[in-house]
């Protein structure tokens, strides 16, 4: 989408939305929307405007693409400094939150029998006001929310001040407690700095899951992929396998809880660029290579290799985080990482406090526990719980909330915290309300309403203002804040303020003391239970979105439900098999987990998705107040029964089938692609006049994050199959991430969609011409001509075709989330990737108006657009200047199963410029 295409969004009267009939029929809907008075814009015009994604705290900029008064697609804002066009699967799927059937639609009050009963807004707000008035008599009011920044944080403070409400520290499961504590000790800055990965030439990440949930995954994905351009060398050390780990050039497994030993060894063995004070160095134990090996399990060769790389690098950058800073050894790990950054001179440039993430208001679970203890004695009047999907991490919080005179939940779903509430105020989705987000110092992005609220919901800001009886509404408030900053909230999508460089000085004394005091010699007893970051659910808040459950977790390949992933050896030793439902000693006795046996996982590590941490009461690290995500000495309990996991992958072994682009995968029988040496064929391959649409995918850049999959679902009205169908292998996704275990890396990810073959086997066998080769080289599928023989799917070697076994279910209001340019397929027809033909059609239409052919980069497919690391390019293969042409004619190009002579239009690149690869 280009700047000039933007148009100011025109709101739609709710009337036009109400009772839109069969949404499969674009025409009918269109007509209703034309009924709107004073709307002279053509109804097929995309109405695009810029806002900010609030699905996680990263705060990526998004373009909301609206049609007929409804947002139907989110895309990364190419101009936004954080994501530059990319958007993760959570962001793509967040429309599923907006249109979710179970979203709260009106204020609810706890009835006499404890059930929820509707209540009017006025009644609800009056109840709160009265309760606040009554509370004057000595009882304390508290306000707890998830991370809050920008104008809302401002307003909250005012609200707290004016109504004598204590604002508790914001609750985040990822509070970065260890990092902030460490930087506080080291430099007196209790902050999460910006890590400029793109400027480093050596990246050493210790447990930091850059691509899943660490600070800003999309930005890291982009920066690492930029780094790969200039041969960034990347060592990733972690106790349990993560998606990030699978992408690192050197992925090294170390014993959980031994990170501080490794970093101590590195600190002592590497040449410091800026020497550290003696007393600090003295506080760091001397670690011989043997000790390091004994503690961490990292071989001496690997250790020496790491040190050598560190010394050789010009701009080395070490980042500790994730699981590695979330255990008893978390603080020393973070401290040592900080010291390494200091000694390598990274502080101030690669590690930048000037653009520190805004976590001012966020407290650690530890802090909150203290506050709760304090509150437990007092009597609480009104307790506000805002935007919280769990209270579990903070022991006693649920009770305090329960004991309050009036507990008010501001939420969009019946998350567990609502059980403690007396009153529920449904808050608008960020696409329905104003706001802004200060992601890091120097960047504030606007949250703008894309359309009038779907239900009877109100923005949190308006609720607060009403309770404060303050003049003006929330929109004005935000606008005022921006005016104060000399910006216009209507015009600017985001505001970048110049940040002044922050001078930091290492505080030797406290560092030495804290290092000594917090040093824990012993590592965790194995087997260890680790809470892996989830690229799908973040900290569990996104699990309500059905689409995210539909897309398999790239790492475990399980789509629906929790799974306890363990290595094959562990399975053998614990004598459990895949699908066995077991207990885990460290967790609540009532929780059972189906076992996922995964050969790529490390020995003696059992891993659960972080979304489970949202329900379990995890222990808290005394040093940092952070949740402990690594628990030692766990055992598997009895096997209760057996379950069928929803694993769509038929086999993770691609050996010798010419699927993965690697010579290893070309045994005799599968022809390797030799340029200029085409296999002889009976007939000439079809000629194309102006266009031959093609796609190229750089597997070095692909991280497996599945953003493309989510984007495709939303763009193409793909229906959700559900767990039962998944167990039958009946997926509907047009593009899938195939995980393979026999590649160069722990897991090779391979995005596969319809390969738009030049000689498509599916076409010949269709009796009714429902699929054929179109003049632009596309393998067309005409839905309403299809009779459903499924012969094409049988004959597709890539198995890219999807059959509508049933009519797709779109529970109201999900039926509003329909791209009017794409048909909603009826039951009994075949469907598949079309290379987003609706976008091609639109682009060709524009081009024809200007009487030219479509230019390269003028548009792209949904998957390519969304890819955070820019691994996918799409374009016209006949245009020799096009990006896709360049990629398709570069070194190490491969097409899947080329030996079959299907002439696919999807090219896979793989140089593997990640240094010597391999699972170390």
């Amino acid at each position, binding site marked *: 989408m280009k700047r000039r295409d933007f148009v100011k969004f025109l709101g739609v009267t709710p009337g036009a939305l109400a009772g839109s009939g069969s949404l499969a029929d674009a025409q009918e809907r269109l007509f209703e929307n034309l009924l709107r008075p004073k709307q002279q814009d053509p109804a097929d015009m995309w109405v695009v405007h810029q806002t900010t994604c609030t699905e996680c705290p990263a705060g990526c900029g998004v373009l909301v693409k609206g049609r007929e008064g409804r947002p139907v697609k989110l895309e990364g804002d190419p101009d936004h400094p954080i994501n530059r066009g990319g958007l993760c699967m959570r962001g793509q799927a967040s429309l599923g939150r907006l249109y979710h059937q179970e979203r709260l639609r009106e204020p609810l009050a706890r009835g006499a029998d404890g059930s929820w009963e509707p209540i009017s807004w006025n009644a609800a707000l009056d109840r709160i006001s009265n309760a606040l008035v009554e509370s004057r008599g000595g009882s304390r009011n508290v306000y707890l929310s998830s991370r809050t920044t920008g104008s809302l944080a401002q307003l909250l403070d005012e609200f707290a001040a004016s109504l004598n409400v204590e604002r508790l520290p914001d609750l985040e499961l990822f509070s970065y407690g260890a990092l902030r504590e460490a930087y506080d000790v080291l430099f007196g800055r209790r902050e999460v700095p910006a890590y400029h990965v793109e400027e480093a030439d050596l990246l050493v990440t210790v447990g930091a899951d850059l691509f899943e949930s660490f600070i800003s995954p999309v930005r890291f994905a982009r920066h690492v992929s930029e780094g790969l351009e200039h041969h960034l060398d990347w060592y990733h050390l972690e106790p349990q396998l993560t998606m990030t780990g699978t992408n690192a050039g050197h992925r090294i497994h170390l014993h959980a809880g031994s990170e501080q030993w490794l970093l101590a060894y590195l600190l002592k063995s590497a040449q410091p660029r800026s020497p550290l004070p003696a007393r600090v160095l003295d506080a760091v134990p001397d670690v011989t290579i043997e000790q390091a090996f004994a503690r961490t399990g990292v071989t001496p060769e690997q250790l020496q290799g790491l040190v050598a790389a560190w010394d050789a690098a010009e701009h080395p950058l070490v980042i500790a985080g994730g699981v590695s800073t979330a255990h008893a050894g978390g603080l020393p790990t973070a401290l040592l990482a900080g010291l390494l950054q200091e000694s390598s001179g990274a502080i101030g440039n690669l590690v930048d406090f000037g653009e520190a993430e805004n976590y001012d208001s966020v407290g650690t679970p530890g802090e909150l526990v203290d506050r709760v203890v304090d509150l437990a004695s007092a009597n609480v009047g009104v307790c506000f719980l805002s935007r919280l999907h769990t209270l579990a991490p903070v022991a006693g919080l649920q009770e305090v909330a329960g004991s309050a005179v009036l507990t008010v939940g501001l939420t969009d779903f019946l998350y567990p915290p609502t059980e403690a509430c007396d009153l529920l105020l449904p808050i608008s989705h960020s696409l329905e309300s104003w706001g802004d987000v200060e992601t890091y110092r120097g960047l504030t992005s606007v949250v703008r309403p894309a359309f009038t609220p779907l239900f009877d919901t109100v923005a949190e800001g308006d609720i607060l203002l009403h309770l404060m009886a303050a003049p003006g509404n929330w929109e004005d408030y935000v606008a005022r804040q921006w005016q104060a900053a000399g910006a216009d909230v209507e015009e600017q999508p985001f505001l970048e303020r110049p940040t002044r460089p922050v001078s930091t000085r290492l505080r030797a004394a406290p560092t030495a003391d804290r290092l000594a005091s917090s040093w824990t010699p012993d590592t965790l007893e194995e087997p260890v239970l680790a809470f892996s970051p989830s690229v799908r659910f973040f900290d569990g808040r996104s699990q309500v979105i059905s689409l995210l459950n539909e897309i398999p977790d790239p790492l475990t390949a399980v789509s629906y439900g929790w799974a306890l992933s363990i290595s094959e050896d562990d399975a053998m030793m614990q004598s459990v098999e895949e699908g066995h439902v077991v207990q885990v000693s460290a967790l609540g006795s009532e929780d059972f987990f189906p076992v996922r046996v995964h050969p790529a996982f490390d020995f003696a590590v059992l891993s659960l998705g972080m979304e489970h941490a949202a329900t379990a009461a995890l222990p808290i690290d005394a040093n940092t107040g952070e949740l402990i995500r690594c628990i030692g000495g766990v055992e598997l309990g009895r096997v209760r029964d057996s379950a069928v996991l929803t694993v769509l992958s038929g086999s993770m072994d691609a050996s010798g089938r010419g699927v993965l682009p690697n010579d290893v995968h070309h045994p005799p029988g599968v022809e390797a692609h030799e340029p200029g040496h085409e296999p002889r*064929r009976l*007939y*000439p*391959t*079809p000629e194309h006049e102006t266009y031959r649409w093609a796609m190229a995918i750089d597997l070095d850049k692909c991280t497996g994050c599945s953003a493309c999959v989510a984007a495709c679902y939303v763009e193409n009205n793909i229906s959700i199959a559900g767990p039962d169908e998944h167990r039958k292998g009946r997926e509907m996704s047009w593009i899938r991430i195939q995980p393979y275990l026999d590649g160069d890396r722990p897991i090779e990810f391979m995005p596969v969609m319809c390969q738009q073959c*030049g*000689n*498509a*086997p*599916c*076409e*010949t066998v*269709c009796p009714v*011409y429902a*699929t*054929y*080769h179109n003049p632009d080289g596309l393998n067309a599928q005409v839905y309403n001509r299809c009779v459903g023989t499924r012969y094409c799917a049988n004959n597709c070697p890539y198995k890219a075709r999807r059959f509508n076994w049933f009519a797709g279910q779109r529970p109201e209001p999900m039926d509003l989330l329909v791209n009017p340019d794409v048909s909603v397929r009826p039951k009994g027809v075949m469907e598949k990737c079309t290379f987003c033909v609706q976008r091609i059609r639109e682009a060709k239409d524009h081009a024809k108006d200007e009487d030219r052919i479509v230019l390269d980069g003028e548009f792209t497919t949904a998957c390519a657009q969304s890819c955070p690391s820019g691994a996918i390019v799409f374009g016209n293969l006949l245009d020799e200047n096009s990006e896709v042409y360049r990629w398709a004619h570069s070194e190490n190009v491969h097409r899947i199963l080329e030996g079959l002579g299907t*002439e696919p239009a999807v090219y896979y690149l793989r140089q593997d410029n990640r240094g010597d690869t391999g699972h170390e």
Partner: protein
Amino acid sequence: MSDTNRRWEFEDEHEFLEKLKELVDQGTPTERLDVITPIPVPATEEILKMKRSPLRFFTLAGALTGLSLGFAFTIFTVMDWPIITGGKPLVSLPPFLIIAFALTILLGSLASFAGFLILGKMPSISKIQNPIEHENMFIIMLEDEAAQ
């Protein structure tokens, strides 16, 4: 029962054939003789000097029509709206041959059947209403001249 319109019935095929031969040798015009047999008796054909059935021409005509129609139709349709599938040429004769073959057989047999009905003057209303039952006898009938 006049001498000029007589009917002989035999239980045994050989006696029947001898009688028939005798009649023909006597110079009875074959067109006045008709025989009815429970099973086909090829010998009667020589004795009565019957011509070989022209049914085969029906068959040939039908088969040829089918063959040409098969090719003509398939080629016409792909030309009528050219749609490329699987990189195969529009006019791909091997598959079309299968269609042509099927139609050859189909029209060939239908034509033969039609030929049988036409040549055998069937279905004949009169015979349906009052059929002649052979009751497993070999029957010779001599029609009188008036019948001609």
